[in-house]
């Protein structure tokens, strides 16, 4: 929200700069930036849920649905077009969220977290034991085509990054618009006092259902893009630790802006990439300590560092 309310120029500026930047990056950084933005999309969905006080410990479900929609469509249908694959992932995650949403929209607090966890673990349990779906090893995802254009691997990564930048900017634009809409404004009201919102005549459960499907579609798109960027999918994408990472990044980023998830994802991936390289047996410890310090000293996330400065100079 903040990003649009305070400066409508911020969104195109950030993502335009990223698109330009992608032209000069090394292959590894192209890959890393793609993964960061794709995972940022998942976190953006969690942020929208968190604004209502809901935290899903199973968002990896939709991340996995998106990734497996892409992987299975390539493997069994020979579908290679990135746009079609992305659309398929969006449709699959939306359909699943629409169905599960009927149940989950009745749940709050820890029960919402636990039921989403249970659903994601059902998917994990199915994937691990099913040979058709790749079992524990998963399978490889070949590089995509773009509207009939089939570039080589390096060029395909660049194209995929541009697609991811576009998806991330569209996702955050829509999220900002959504949060500024009447349906989005209900978000905070429901968190503050759900029963009063009900008495005012607003459809609380429907508002949560809409939000849940939106968050799931963002996660599905993120999963699809990560699958294409990494070139491999496996059941760990749906395990609870993956969900935990997304929740971690949400807290790290803070609820301040629709751009915060991408910043959070960037910090997380940077820490993880370099910490696993230099301290393979203590990087989780580093992450854990960071998380504790954040919750203690920056309860509104890294993004609040920017907000505070702006508020200080009105």
């Amino acid at each position, binding site marked *: 929200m903040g990003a649009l309310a305070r400066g409508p120029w911020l969104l195109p500026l950030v993502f335009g700069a990223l698109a330009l930047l992608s032209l000069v990056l090394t292959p590894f950084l192209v890959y890393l930036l793609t993964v960061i933005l794709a995972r940022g999309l998942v976190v953006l969905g969690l942020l929208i849920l968190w604004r209502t*006080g809901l*935290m899903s410990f199973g968002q990896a479900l939709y991340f996995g649905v998106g990734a497996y929609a892409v992987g299975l469509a390539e493997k069994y249908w020979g579908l290679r077009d990135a746009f079609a694959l992305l659309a398929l992932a969006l449709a699959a995650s939306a359909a699943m969220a629409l169905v599960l949403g009927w*149940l989950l929209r*009745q*749940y709050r*607090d*820890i*029960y919402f*977290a*636990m*039921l989403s*966890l*249970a*659903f994601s*673990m*059902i998917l*994990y*349990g*199915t994937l*691990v*034991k*099913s040979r058709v779906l790749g079992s524990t090893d998963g399978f490889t995802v070949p590089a995509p085509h773009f509207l009939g254009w089939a570039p080589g691997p390096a060029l395909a990564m660049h194209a995929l990054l541009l697609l991811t930048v576009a998806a991330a900017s569209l996702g955050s634009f829509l999220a900002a618009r959504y949060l500024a809409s009447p349906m989005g404004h209900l978000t905070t009201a429901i968190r503050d*006092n759900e*029963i*009063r919102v009900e008495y005012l005549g607003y459809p609380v459960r429907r508002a949560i259902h809409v939000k849940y499907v939106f968050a799931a579609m963002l996660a599905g798109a993120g999963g699809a893009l990560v699958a294409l960027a990494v070139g491999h999918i496996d059941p760990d994408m749906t395990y*609870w*630790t993956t969900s*935990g990472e997304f*929740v*971690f990044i949400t*807290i790290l980023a803070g609820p301040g802006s629709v751009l915060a998830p991408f910043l959070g994802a960037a910090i997380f991936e940077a820490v993880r990439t370099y910490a696993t390289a230099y301290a393979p*047996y*203590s*990087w*989780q*410890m580093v*992450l*854990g*300590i960071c*998380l*504790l310090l954040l*919750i*203690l000293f920056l*309860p509104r996330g890294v993004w609040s560092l920017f907000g505070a400065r702006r508020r200080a100079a009105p």
Partner: protein
Amino acid sequence: MLTAAAILVDGLDYAAWLFIVAVGLTLIYGVMKVVNVAHGGLYSMGAYAAAWAVGLYFDRGLAPAGSFLVLALASVAVGGVVGLALERGLLRLFYGRDDILIVLVTYAAFLILENLVLQIWGVEAYPAYQPATLLGTMTIAGLPFSTYELALVPLAAAIGAALIWILARTRIGKLVRAVIHDREMASSFGIDVGRVYTVTFVVGAVLGAFGGAVTAPIISVAPGIGVEVIVLAFAVVVIGGLGSVAGTIVGALLVGLARAAAVHLLPQVELFAIYAVMSLVLVLRPQGLFAPARQRRI
């Protein structure tokens, strides 16, 4: 018939193990309303400490029967120290904050404990099979079963009975129930809520570490064991109703029998069956099977 017996005995075994592993989680939630993700870390610390201590014990060539005592003592020591440090040093800072934030604090503690285990004990697997092989096997309905695993059933029953008795009948139990019922009211009657929290958390932590210790002889103690267990323990506890010891018994039995049935009849659905049961229970009874009714506050 043979399969039915196998399902029943395996299911009971597994249920007993699940109960021992999960009951600390439910105790902590019941009293403190903290969903303790660090439970998985305590489990792996307990397993490592026990495996390491048992290894040392057998290297000395002491009487084999004493190894059971070593298992128990190692887990109590580790669970006590780590539990006390977590509650006093960490959780205390976050009481009164959002429930979800406290979950994340324990998640952070879990990440730290996972790496602490690697720092202390390294990345190799620790075998500690001696206590399990010591007891040999038993034949039930013509099938051999590990006596050690069967012995978990009375052990779990004893732990459950002791907890229920302490909570229902003793003075300490009354204090704890007063805190569960209304923390502020209990505090205004002069109950030291902070101390009740500390004691509860340490007991829960010791139970978590003990769960790891009794598991050490039947698995290969290797990095990552806590990650799998914590989510299983959640399933058990949520099915029974967060915070209910009796509910945890029922949750453990349901999950244990469901898994045993899946393993013997249709192995592909093993994990699926467990979480399907969890989802089904949550869908039908959102608060779990045994959770007390709660008023809706406006």
